[in-house]
């Protein structure tokens, strides 16, 4: 018997990419450039894809590079935000 497919969200403690819904034109070029295939066009053309498997993101930025309107931002998990400080403040 032919199996029925279902799209089931697989949660994670992180959300690597965010879509600016004002800028997103729902072209899904990001979904087709995503190497781990975590962006699913659940709501159809014209709408941002759903980040269905956020934990599987490998933070390459291909989706951001492909986006024609600059609608996608990528942010690292909190634990991975390396610290930088003013050079002038060293030793003070």
């Amino acid at each position: 018997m032919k199996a029925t497919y279902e799209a089931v969200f697989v949660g994670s403690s992180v959300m690597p990419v965010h879509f600016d819904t004002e800028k997103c034109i729902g072209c899904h070029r990001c979904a087709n450039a995503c190497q781990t295939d975590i962006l699913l066009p659940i709501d159809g053309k014209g709408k941002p894809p759903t980040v269905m498997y956020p934990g599987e993101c490998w933070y390459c930025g291909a989706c951001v590079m492909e986006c024609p309107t600059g609608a996608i931002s990528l942010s690292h998990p909190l634990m991975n935000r390396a610290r930088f400080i003013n050079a002038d403040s060293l030793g003070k």
Partner: protein
Amino acid sequence: MADWPYENRSGKRAEYTCDVLVLGGGLAGCHAAVAAAEAGRRVILVEKGAVIRSGSAGTGFDHWEMACTNPGCRITPEEMTEALVSEQDHYGNRIAHYIEAREGYDRLMDLEKIGGKVRDTGDEFAGAAFRDEKTKLLYAYDYTNRYTLRVWGSTFKPALLRRLKALDVTVLDRTEATALLYADREGRRQCTGAIGMEVRTGEIRVISAKATVLCMSRPARIWLFNADTPGLCEFRPFQSIGSGHAMAWRIGAEFTMMEKSVRGEFSAAGRSFPPYGTGNNHNTWYAATMVDSRGVEIPYVDRDGRELKSVDERYRPAPGQKFFLKGGVIDEPKYEWRGPETLPFDELIRRGYRLPFYADLSRMPDAERRVIWGLMVGEEGKTKIPILKNYTDRGFDPQKHVLQSYGTGWQSAAFLDQERQLFGAPGGLMHDWDLKTNIDGLYAAGDQLYASDCAGFACATGHYAGRKAADAALQLEEVCPDPAQVENEVNRLLAPLDVRRGMDWREVNMACAKAMQNYCGGIRCDDLLHQGLDLIQSLRTEALHEVSAHNPHELMRIHEVSDILDVCELIYRACLARACSCAPLFFERSDSREEMRTQEDGFLTLSNWDGEIRTRMIPHDYAGDLVTSYTERNRDYMRSREGQV
């Protein structure tokens, strides 16, 4: 829960035929496909992601190593190859490194012709010490000997995809290759194509080919796994987990150095940070100025401990030294090739330097700062958006800020000994001078080969393997797929769809990683290795059958875990086969049989011949004389490049 957004083609089959099949569409695979298509063969390229940005260098790479035939280089391909292999205590890949050193620059010139950016055409770095004003090529590391080039690698994959289309290569994106087809004739085994699954629809794809090139990177998620952020747990792409190794192992291909693993170096799922995203002075960041928490500059010294006064000296060999080695697989080189380096950590602490340390580009000459932050960080894989843009958006200004380094090493990492990785020129497929495996019609390139290196290595060996596979396709016959092999594979691939409310693939991957850490960690012995092997086999025969999938995406992840289990078995078998500890392979036994040491000084190979494990020793110098061996086999290629600059 929602409807699956793609067509359901579960159980449907599509059949393809070609002369040369390339599995894996990263740099190696694209070059193999281009070379075979340029030779006039019908080519199919299979890629699990999407070729436009797939592979380890999909979003870029910044430095091209061992480009020894570039016009500025003062080191010959022979010198470079022997130095690199000697540096690796002869557990290096002489054939592949020689191909890289001899043909790498040809590949760069090809890439430039199709739209890749390889020189400073915009004169951004005019007058810099690392720039050749005539050719506008930019050099890294050793500015005197000029064997490494700084390149704009983010331009390469889109250019290669355009080239593949222009050559009428059939590109099957979103297709995971899962098994190699084979036929046995007159005592020899021939690879006759592959089976795969479209990962959005579940369609089964059966591809017959006269010759096949494996370019599917190296295994990962063996010791390191994190069920919450699995995408971050390794250095190489999340989807590159060694399926090429697993598939080849299952049909009897011969591997070597699979007993080699190193203490983990990168896993941003906990133990380290985004690659190239912390203050350091190695690789992409060489030779950044480092300071301590008081703002005191950390000295660079040459191999003799002489303190270097200028930034320029960090890029020059020591007095009396011809050249030094730096790059992807070079960590702590021997004296002969040791380049400038900051003082060792222990010495810094003895002298009163205070943690944490920082990279301080603000103190560097303008061109050196801009080439590290802007070109290197920007073009290196996973840096254009995740580091350069992200940090800039957060306010990082390299003229004002210093970037923190964590811990005591340049990786900003803190791994335990049992948290291991296949890194730093790990094991892979054994091959001959044609990059052919022991299976007829089966070739390999890039990280699929043993002791592989970086992007230039992938491009050079990919093109070379593609040429040789194209030649072989003229001699080999097309063989119809064996119906039994296809049927078995289809059943295996789709089985998890029939399991209801079963286990999650991540649970098995985690169990596997823990089994590897417990039984195949930093120190091995026969008793533990046998237990570990039993546990891995029970995960395969029991747990794997309890895993369920709701859709083809989840099926793909389960297939990956199945391949990971095969790779674990390969690693256990390789560890069991080597009786004596071997420092160059980072292989340590508590029950080392020292009497075996002299007999084991070579490439120990193993293959799985329908359940029988076969081993043999191959001497380190099996490649013979480099120039003679290469020339004998590549006269046509050498003629074709004559007159090209």
